[in-house]
């Protein structure tokens, strides 16, 4: 099968491209900067340019769509343009091209409004109640993609939760940078349980979704993917900081206060975007102070997938990669 992987310059995108390739498929990667994945056809372009997207889907039989604007703050119009407009354009182009399988990589935040998640499954995406521009636009994108599901093109949405691993410029790098700058508080003592996903597990789940997309019990659904090993947020962050040689966060802020502060900061930031992200946004405050863990039974059964790398093994690999200077 010839497979298009969009957004393959990021941590997860590269891992997905490599895994799909290893499974014996032909892979084309598509994003603005080089994917640097050996053995793939690398196409450079933008999700916001129609001609680029047309070229990207030309001749492929399957699409794995990861390209997105991922950030905790920024201009709402950018999120709209890339996440909603880009997905809409790609889905339409893929359908015209006769693509048979389409895996939309989404996020659990598309279905949650900020309250704690204790063992829930994948609830429907809800752009109205999703918190923040990222979650809202990703919710719209997932709904767009799943609406295109049919016998001709089988669409599956996969929502990995908090992906991390060596070389991660999103979660790990941010946590470490904040910890080094003493700007990573542990809300309410960091007791909330969070599910996270080691990058190799997220990649294998996405690859599994691609294989299983043809199955009538699978396509048309959204699946939350995690390691299935929820840990208190303090332990998780401490583990990542320790593995990366950063100071372990110690101070604690009451969650209500942090949420209010996050709201104010976020509002100011939207008007005057700067170089760095705000120190605390409401979204982050909620992520760090309420439980976020999921029922993985249906994901594992339907995708015939189980995570290969445990949290402890993942942290060991993070430490080893740090020691190698990666």
């Amino acid at each position, binding site marked *: 099968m010839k497979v298009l992987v969009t957004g393959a310059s990021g941590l997860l995108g590269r891992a997905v491209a490599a895994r799909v390739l290893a499974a014996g498929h032909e892979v084309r990667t598509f994003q603005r900067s080089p994917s640097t994945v050996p053995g793939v056809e690398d196409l450079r372009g933008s999700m916001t340019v129609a001609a680029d997207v047309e070229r990207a889907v030309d001749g492929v039989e399957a699409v794995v769509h990861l390209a997105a604007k991922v950030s905790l703050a920024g201009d709402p119009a950018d999120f709209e343009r890339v996440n909603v407009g880009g997905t809409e354009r790609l889905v339409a182009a893929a359908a015209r091209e006769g693509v048979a399988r389409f895996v939309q990589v989404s996020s659990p935040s598309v279905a949650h409004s900020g309250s*704690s998640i*204790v*063992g829930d499954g994948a609830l429907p995406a809800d752009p109205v109640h999703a918190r923040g521009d990222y979650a809202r636009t990703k919710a719209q994108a997932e709904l767009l993609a799943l609406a295109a599901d049919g016998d001709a093109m089988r669409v599956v949405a996969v929502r990995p939760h908090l992906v991390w691993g060596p070389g991660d410029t999103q979660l790990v790098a941010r946590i470490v940078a904040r910890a080094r700058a003493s700007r990573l508080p542990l*809300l*309410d*003592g*960091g*007791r*909330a*349980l969070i599910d996270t996903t080691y990058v190799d597990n997220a990649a294998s789940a996405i690859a599994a979704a691609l294989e299983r997309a043809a199955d009538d019990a699978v396509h048309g659904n959204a699946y939350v993917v995690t390691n*299935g*090993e*929820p*840990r*208190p947020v*303090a*332990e998780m962050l*401490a583990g990542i900081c320790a593995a990366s040689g950063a100071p372990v966060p110690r101070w604690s802020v009451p*969650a209500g206060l942090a949420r209010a502060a996050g709201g104010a900061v976020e509002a100011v930031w939207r008007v005057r975007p700067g170089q760095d992200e705000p120190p605390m946004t409401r979204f982050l405050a909620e992520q760090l*102070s*309420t*439980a976020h*863990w999921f*029922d*993985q*039974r249906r994901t*594992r059964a339907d995708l015939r997938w189980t995570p290969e790398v445990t949290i402890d093994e993942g942290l060991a690999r993070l430490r080893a990669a740090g020691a190698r200077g990666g």
Partner: protein
Amino acid sequence: MTTPLPSAVGSTAPASLPPDGLDGLDPTFSRLVTAGDPGRTWHLLDNADHLARLGVEPVGTLLCVHGNPTWSYLWRRLVTAATAQAAADGVAWRVIAVDQLEMGYSERTGELRGLPRRVADLDDLTTALGVTGPVVTVGHDWGGVISLGWAVDHPDQLAGVVLLNTAVHQPEHLRIPAPLRLALRPAVLGRATVATPAFLETTLALGRPRLTAAVKEGYRAPYREAARRGGIGGFVADIPVDAAHPSAAELDRIATAVSGLQVPALMLWGPSDPVFGDQYLEDLVGRLPHADVHRFEGASHLVAEDVDYAAAALTWLGDLPTAGSDDAGAEAASASPRPAQPTYHPLWHQLDEQRHSTETALVEMAPPGGDSPRVVTWSLLARRVRELAAGLTAAGVRPGDRVSLLVPPGADLTAVLYACLRIGAVVVVADAGLGLRGLTRAVRGSRPQHVIGALPGLSAARALGWPGRRISTTPLPRATARALGVRYALVDLVDLGQGVDTPAEPAPDATAAVLFTSGSTGPAKGVVYSHRQLAAVAGALRDQYDLGVGTGLVAGFAPFALLAPALGARSVTPDMDVTSPRTLTAPAVAAAAAAVDATVLFLSPAALANVVATADSLTPADHEALAQVRIFLSAGAPVPEPLLAAAGRLMPNAEPHTPYGMTEGLLMTDVTLDVIRDATSTRPDGDRGGVCVGRPTPTTEVRISPLDADGAATGEPTTDPGRTGEILVTAPHLKRGYFRLHLTDRAATRGVPDDRWHRTGDVGHLDEQGRLWVEGRLAHVITTADGVVTPVGLEQAVEQVDGVVRAGVVGIGPQGTQLLVAVVETTTPARRVALADPELAEEVRGAVGRPLAAVLVVPDLPTDVRHNSKIDRTRLARWAEGVLSGGRVRRP
């Protein structure tokens, strides 16, 4: 009618269908039917059409009659549930729930309908409906009376009666309940019931828990204007306050005929009802002694709203022989061979045998009001029991009467207990460890006719309004006696009984006792024993520990101690505060042992820790007395092996034992310290874990009902080793059932080989050598995505970690995808709740060997008050889930 009612009572209106949208009421069940001559139109709920559409033939009809001031809305859930059961290929019951005339959406005729008329009305209706085949009547409040009126008039069709809080008779010695007395006052009646919705609103306020606004609206819907409320006033005016009342004769006729009913009966009762309280249940049980009764503790008058009565009723109906129940299975089960019944010796057998003996029968180390030990010989004890038996008879205690004993352990309790048993009275014994609230529930719920107590117990009985005629253990000053409502002291009974013959001995299968102990969850349950079963408890003790005539035993554990005279054993009550077993000291135990040359010692686990802690004060003579002990028994709750060993060291010649049992079966298995050590070191079942409680006693059988993926014990009972499931037991000395808890009885005997088996609510497994291992409570089983996990084995593993004193392992999150969380007490006690530090968390995770979401450190784990040893995992799980969701942190 002599009582003035407003003219609104005379309003007329045709019947109508209820408006759509009433909460929980499916409008497709509603229909209008005209019956009688002159024709009157009724609104009723009826699922006949639904059953016809399903193509199922009903096995019978439930004829449901509401009371005042409700309407057929009361039965909406029963109609819905019965129809759903039929649709799900279950047994089909037609349900007809009427709005009585003048009520609900039935016709307002403008007439006052007394009881005889209403019974006739209902007959008109069933005639018009052409109801044929078996009928089970279902009634609530005054609808109970009217439904029973129909029942006694249709013996050929009647297949059963179901009653929810109702009454057919006003017991002579009781006044009409205060709320009704008020409503009946002429000046109040019309205003309260018709002109204003006060009576209706008062009734709707009785929901426990409170009714939702939507349900209240449902009840109010047909009674919005005074002109529609005439029937409410009419019903209240129809309460027969005296024999001259026009409805009194009909009520008497029905009440008398009910006493002759032989059909199956079910009573579902809300004991918190301020009107139809337990006294009316007592009257009904007296009339229908074969009835299955369930008291829903905490539920009130609107029991149909407070609890899932529909499921309870349908389950009960499913058990009726007429409802196509699977008789073949029952026959096959009863064919399984039972061990021979032990020979029956009444509990007072040894008192008769030893009645001329001047040997010591019992010693009380600290008798009430005395400073030297009180020694009672067999002849004195036997005489006292005879005298009290005669005196109790003279005082009006009849065979079958329940007598609540609020007497601390000692000579008085022993004498009164055996006297009551001898005359066939049913002793109600409640454990002081229940606390006042639990004790109040127990005594109220058991509805004793008599209370025998010492002063604190009697004061509580008076202050808390416990029922029963009161007898004091000690003579009281006249003013005190009057204030407490005490008629006799025990010494008065001795005089009173002079020349009075005691009744014949009760039959072996007559009820002997109702025992209440503190449950680990929920209100205490009364456990019922027959004389044969109680005698079998004594027999099991005798056989397991070789007790008999002449054995000296220290009775630090009341349930077993009370049986010593039945075995001819010499017992001693040590100097201790029975409400606080932790106060028992080692010297007190040694002194008691010396007083009867004890060779057997029974203690409760709570007492044990303090006995070990005070061992330094023992004198050489004390040590000598303790060296005579050959068997030492700690009963009531699991004991940590080191504590058992430490206690064993105080008694160098004694073999420490710990039995496994429950109020429902006091001695099911037994294990010695040596076997515990051997079993724990060899761990025949690998890491499954649990507490080894040894082999079944000679007359006990144990089976395991394996767990399914949801953690429910649905498996076929087995003796296969290594299967984890709910522990099932049977023995001649097992209880007969629960007191007025039909649903609990049913749950405890669900799917068992025959009705002499009991589901313990504990989970565990048998090993290759037939030893039982307890792995926790069924309610505490954890269902993870990787399978079902029991807590005790994991807790034992965590407790092996350095720095951990005690651990609770619980599941949080939804069933089937729960996460494991360990909560620990540490050697250096934590000052506040926190996540364990990384090193401790890593060690605990390593010890458990399963994914553990979090390790929490707490100052104290929540435990039961009585033993401080059973961790309340249900509470702990709820707490842990809150803390790990970012909720506010309180102590567990």
